[in-house]
């Protein structure tokens, strides 16, 4: 499974658990317009750390906070490299 599809699956899973309507995921989708709240993102980041073994937000370098779904995926892809 690609990084992007793993992340997309986690977005869908958490949205369904939190009973939130997830907007169709595209690179341009603004995260705060995705239908998810902060708690949902917090859970997604924690679960991705378990499944992928990485948390790019905890890197020693300053992290630019992702604004779109595409930014979010790139943050993980760049960190994994």
């Amino acid at each position: 499974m690609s990084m992007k599809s793993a992340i997309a699956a986690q977005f869908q899973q958490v949205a369904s658990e939190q009973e939130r309507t997830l907007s169709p995921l595209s690179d341009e989708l603004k995260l705060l317009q995705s239908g998810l709240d902060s708690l949902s993102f917090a859970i997604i980041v924690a679960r991705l750390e378990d499944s992928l073994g990485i948390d790019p937000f905890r890197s020693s370098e300053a992290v630019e906070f992702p604004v779109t779904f595409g930014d979010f995926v790139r943050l993980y892809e760049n960190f994994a490299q």
Partner: protein
Amino acid sequence: MPSKSRSLWESITAAGIRSSRLYGIDTAVTLADLAHASSLGGRLEQLRGRTVLLAIKDQLTAALAMIELDGVAQRMVLCPPDLLPGHLPGVIKGAGVNACVRDAAPRDTTGLGIEPCMTSEPKLLPGEVTRRRSHATEWILLTSGTTGAPKLVLHDLASLTSALAGQPSAPDTIVWSTWYDIRRYGGLQIFLRAVHAGSLVLSDPAESVIDFLARAAAARVTHISGTPSHWRRALMSGAAGTISPRYVRLSGEIADQAVLDSLRAAYPHATVAHAFASTEAGVGFEVRDGLAGFPATMVSAPGSSVQLRVTGETLRIRSPGNAHRYLSEEAEPLQGADGYVDTGDRVEPRAGRYFFVGRRGGVINVGGLKVHPEEIEAVINSHPWVRMSLVKARRNPITGAVVTADVVLADEAGATGERPGGEALTRELIDSCRRVLAPHKVPAMIRIVPALEVSASGKLVRPVA
């Protein structure tokens, strides 16, 4: 500045408000208009000398009621908007409530059994108002307790405004804003600061961060405050640049270096400060050097009205901003024998600074909201499949922490109903939590474990941080 013999209204008029305004989500009120108008009208006198429950959803309505009732009511009990209806009877009894103010459209229509109970709206009714101070009003704030039932913390205007000395006082040029609810300590501090110094843009839980920032920008916000979680959300909105404040404040959670650096980059012309405060201990300090943690020189610094001390790894504070006491008779004393309030926040010295490393007693801070593990464990343990559980914090870059649980299952034989395996099992446990707990208290992850460590004294061994 506020003084012991002034009401909030007298104090803010003495500070020289002219065009200061309170901005609600779709309406605004000019503070000076309160001289000849009232949100409660002639009914205000019916509340004189009473213990008034403010069970109000709308922040602007609540703000007006607080200004009008200080000096009039014997006691004001500030209900945060998310107070569970089940906790109301305990609050009413504990505080001795004998009057109430609610929204014109109350969130639930069941009576509270309190008379008089009046409704209020975020607007002023013109008419003659005598603002006579007859009482040194006690302010009761609610803070979360171990069992989920809130603890009642008693302040007065003097303790609540003790940190205002030395604050900028430039009426009509300062516009505050905050994501906090002003019925909680952190938000109440911003409210009191704002009404003494300028205007305030109030938040609304139903409003998106982008809309809130747009409203703050329209009001020309200069000072803005929130938790690190609020700020991370603003940074993720792509709309952080909508505002250009002079002062950016973080409190309510540990401010890590990453969020401080991100805010410095987003607002290069602003002072980025992080502050420590708690309902019981009051405002401890503010750090303006852009670094996480606080300088060790702040501890035991002589001559300061706020005295800090680190004892047994936790930060303790003695100051005129300390709350006076808990309201319930069976509650433990708020201050220790030495007059210091133990904040329960653990700190660790490193290279001339102290860094916050979590809470004693395992209390978890999820996006600025306190979570007591015992409350969640009680819910999980009530499930017939569960023998015992341990709820822990897990560090998180978005909300500071999330809640996780390790669960030991009951013997299959004793369990009722067929027990599913794997994910379906943890899903059901999470769902059962979601049915009774606020969303931030529901474990993000549940792990089934064969056993949990129990100490010689028979207590669950809890992780230190």
